[in-house]
């Protein structure tokens, strides 16, 4: 865990998630200040805008701006929804936030309810993390008992109810409109946009959806001010950010560092390369972000702008590190299989295209590739991108392009020699799984 941020920083140890511990760390001070001083909702939104906080779920959309889209005068129900469906391969930060600091998310969501005039909220929690879901429910109980949730919060006129919704294994439900469908008790299939959730969201009512880490950043911004948050990071990239580092490093885990931290520093925090081996490439923002080879990523700083300039995306902050023992064709094959499996099947370019991508990469990996396959892959990606209802189509296409752009020779080698550049036993040794089955 990084000691530079504020989300996981003080929250360590088995009891850190409890309400009493959170309050000891200064928790719920922001909410208390807001309700006791009757702070006008627009001031909260203005503070967020000043902070330059950008959504931590992947797209990096400015949070203050998103909140300002909610129709303040709308008379009926409005909703705040938290996206804890974390399923983008490589991403495991929201699980740790909910494990060690659930009240920070709860406080952020209550403040969001206050700022946007919503009386109800839901936190959609990834299916595979049952214990975290149960813990979140317990944290909600604590908050209710302390009058931080429910009617007349802390004796004020403001009321807000919050519930947890447990997913059950569908990556696509991380897409915000699929997530809403899922809460409504349906298959998680994304909706056409527009209308956007701010006008037609949960149960057809205005709704704002943010990522877990986004909500967790809100109390700090209220306490310390938007300007201070911005100063933690760099212009246009406010704050600290959690990076989930996985793959071929000595110490995989979450590290909370200021936006704009040079990549080599993060790599060092993660204990450096496993076994001192050579870095081959890094997927910097979750599995849909294009891979970057060593010479490019080592020059990057970790913020939306620097990674975008290098031709990839900061995304969810999931940093997948691959060393020289990695077969890049096999790596892409596994990712392509994932998108093919998880496509909801509504749009033809995505449903058919993800199947094509997987089958072609699969045959290259298995020694049956044809020389024209690389052009075929490129043309399939062209036929997917920008032609689908949701961004999963693009998410499936972008890694293919990234791998082909930077590791084309390796794909060609597979096609010509019908085998891998990296011998199987070297790959196995790289994975660190000790007993050979």
């Amino acid at each position, binding site marked *: 865990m990084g000691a530079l941020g504020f989300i996981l920083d003080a929250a360590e140890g088995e009891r850190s998630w409890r309400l009493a511990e959170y309050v000891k760390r200064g928790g719920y001070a922001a909410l208390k200040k807001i309700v006791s001083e009757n702070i006008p909702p627009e001031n909260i939104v203005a503070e967020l805008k000043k902070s330059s906080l950008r959504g931590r779920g992947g797209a990096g959309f400015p949070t203050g701006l998103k909140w300002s889209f909610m129709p303040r005068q709308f008379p009926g129900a409005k909703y705040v929804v938290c996206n804890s469906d974390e399923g983008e391969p490589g991403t495991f930060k929201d699980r740790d936030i909910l494990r060690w600091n659930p009240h920070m998310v709860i406080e952020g969501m209550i403040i969001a309810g206050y700022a946007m005039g919503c009386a109800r909220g839901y936190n959609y929690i990834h299916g595979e993390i049952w214990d975290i879901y149960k813990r979140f429910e317990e944290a909600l109980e604590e908050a209710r008992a302390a009058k931080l949730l429910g009617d007349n919060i802390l004796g004020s006129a403001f009321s807000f109810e919050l519930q947890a919704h447990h997913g059950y294994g*569908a990556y696509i439900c991380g897409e915000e409109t699929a997530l809403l469908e899922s809460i409504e008790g349906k298959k998680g299939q994304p909706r056409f946009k527009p209308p956007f959730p701010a006008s037609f969201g949960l149960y057809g009512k205005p709704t704002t959806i943010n990522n877990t880490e986004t909500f967790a950043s809100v109390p700090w911004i209220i306490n310390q001010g938007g300007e201070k948050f911005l100063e933690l990071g760099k212009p246009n990239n406010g704050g600290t950010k959690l990076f*989930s580092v996985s793959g071929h490093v000595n110490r995989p885990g979450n590290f909370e560092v200021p936006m704009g931290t040079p990549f080599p520093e993060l790599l060092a925090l993660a204990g450096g390369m496993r076994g001192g081996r050579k870095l081959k490439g890094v997927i910097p923002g979750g599995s849909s972000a294009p891979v970057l080879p060593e010479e490019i990523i080592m020059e990057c700083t970790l913020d939306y702008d620097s990674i975008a300039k290098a031709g990839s995306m900061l995304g969810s902050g999931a940093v997948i590190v691959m060393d020289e023992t990695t077969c890049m064709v096999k790596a892409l094959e596994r990712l392509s299989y994932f998108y093919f499996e998880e496509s909801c099947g509504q749009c033809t370019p995505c449903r058919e295209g993800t199947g094509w991508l997987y089958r072609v990469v699969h045959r290259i990996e298995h020694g049956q590739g044809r020389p024209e396959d690389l052009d075929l892959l490129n043309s399939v990606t062209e036929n997917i991108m920008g032609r689908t209802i949701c961004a999963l189509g693009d998410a499936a296409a972008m890694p293919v392009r990234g791998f082909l752009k930077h590791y084309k020779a390796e794909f060609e080698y597979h096609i010509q020699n019908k085998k891998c550049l990296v011998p199987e036993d070297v790959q196995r040794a790289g*994975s660190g799984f000790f007993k050979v089955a």
Partner: protein
Amino acid sequence: MLSQESQKQIDREVAKYPAEQKQSAVMAALAIVQMERGWLSNEIIEAVANHLGMAPMAVYEVASFYNMYDLAPVGKYKITVCTNLPCALSGGVHAADYLKQKLGIGFNETTADGRFTLKEGECMGACGDAPVMLVNNVRMCSFMQPEQIDRLLGECQ
């Protein structure tokens, strides 16, 4: 068809949503009955539909869309191994191979004694703890090297 305990749990879930949105509890209801019975038969899906005032087909659609529901019987212990890339880089696929060899079954198969079913899983949001596996949808096991896998199998009696 639904046990009293299941009904009680389902009604607690229903209360989380606006009164006219009972259907929102369908995912939780299916999870609850699956936890009790091991898998989701057509009869139990219909019972859930009746309880929530939904069309059975609508409940079936949900049950078949989400990966963690089982529409056919599974072993007493369903072990789902994450083999997605981040885990694979740290032994996820090798851990799955090891399990296959020890249990003598492949993915989506059940041991002859009905004790184990093996499934291939997608990212569980725990990639830093690879290899990871999930037992019966609720128990996540981290850093599963051969020794830990042996111990887990021993515990699953």
